[in-house]
Structures are given as C-alpha cells and as structure tokens.
C-alpha cells in the first residue's frame, strides 16, 4: 500500500471510474467481436465522464440551477465538469454510430464480426 497516496479511500468513486476505464480499454483492444469492442469504447467514455462528474461534486451542495435567486458560490457544485461531459456524451454517440455503421458494412462484405479473421482472409486473398 506504500504505492498509493493518502486519498485512496475518499476517492473510491474515481477509483471505480479508473477500473471501468481499464475494462473498457481492454475490451476495445482485445475483444474479437466488433460489437463488443464498441461497447467497450462506450464503457471507456462513460468512465471518463463519471470521473469528471465526481470531480465537480462537492459534498452537501446543490445542482447548479439558480433557485430563489441565491447566487452564492457555496450553494452550488462546480458547473464546469457538467458542461464538459455534456459535450463529451454527444461526441461519443456520434463515434458509436459511425463505428456501428462500419460494422454493418464490414459484415455485409465478409459475413463475420471477427476483425482478426477478416484480416487473415484479406491476407490469404493476397489483396
């Protein structure tokens, strides 16, 4: 435990986000099936967003929507990470749609979802 810093326990949410990031990364890299790769990509992105949201959270404060005209800094959580995540979610949806359409085209051509098999076949064809 010498390796770890002081905030291991209090940052448990972020630790989980990091584990999810690793799982998503491994899925994106090692799954043979393209659809599972894409799910891995989504998990990876979500984990980054979870990390950001945890960063913005402040104990005992409210969501950043002005209620009753109170504009005190100490009432609301940090709004910046929320804005970044909103942008990020849309980016990841677009990328997912693109990857899925690539998958459909690849399947229509080769009738398999396994990327290794496709490249092995391409090599065999000698193209």
């Amino acid at each position, binding site marked *: 435990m010498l390796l770890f810093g002081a905030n291991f326990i209090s940052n*448990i*949410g972020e630790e*989980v986000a990091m*584990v*999810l990031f690793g*799982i*998503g990364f*491994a*899925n994106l890299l090692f*799954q043979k*099936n393209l*659809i*599972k790769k*894409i*799910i*891995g990509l*989504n*998990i990876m992105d*979500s984990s980054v*967003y*979870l990390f950001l*949201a*945890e960063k*913005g*959270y402040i104990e005992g*404060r*409210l*969501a950043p*929507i002005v209620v009753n005209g109170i504009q005190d800094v100490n009432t609301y*959580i940090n709004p910046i*990470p*929320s804005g970044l*995540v*909103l942008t990020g*979610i*849309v980016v990841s*949806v677009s990328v*997912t*749609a693109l990857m*899925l359409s690539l*998958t*459909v*085209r690849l*399947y*229509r*051509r080769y*009738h398999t*979802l396994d990327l290794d098999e496709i490249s092995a076949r391409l090599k065999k064809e*000698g*193209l």
Partner: protein
Amino acid sequence: MKIFEYMLLAFLVLCAVSVSFSKNLLNSILIFMSFSLIMSIMWILLQSPDLAITEAAVGAGVTTILFFATLKKIHGMEEDPDQDGEDQGGKRHE
C-alpha cells in the same frame, strides 16, 4: 445514501465485467443498457441532473436502439449473398 452509492458503483463494475464475458451479443447489449441507466442514476446522486437526463435519453435510449438495429441488420443479412460491389478503379490485374 453513501451505501446506495457504493452499491451502484459495484453494479457498474459488475455490468462492465459481465459485458466482457457474456457469450450472447443481445445479452451484452442489454447489460450495457442497464450500465447506462445506473450511470444516469449515479449522476443524479452527484447533483448533475443535466447529465442524467442526457445520458438517459442518449446513452440508454438512442445508443441502445442503434445497437439493436445493427444486431438485427446483421442477423437479417445471414442468408443473403454478397451484395457489396467492388470498386471499379484500382483493381489489380493478376
């Protein structure tokens, strides 16, 4: 409330791991859908309702629908012969 949060976090990890090891594609997509839903609840707990509503609509809704559409398309193509045209130019003459 803290305990609820920990439970949700544990669920997230569980979902992520079971997506990786499930044999059936439909199952993994469904598990991923629940992953998104749990994520959106998590964001409500973290006081970010904007994110929660967007994730529920985009992540759990539209993305999952797109996954299903892909899956159906793929199964629908099973009995179909190759329809894809090769491109005309740059073909090698061997």
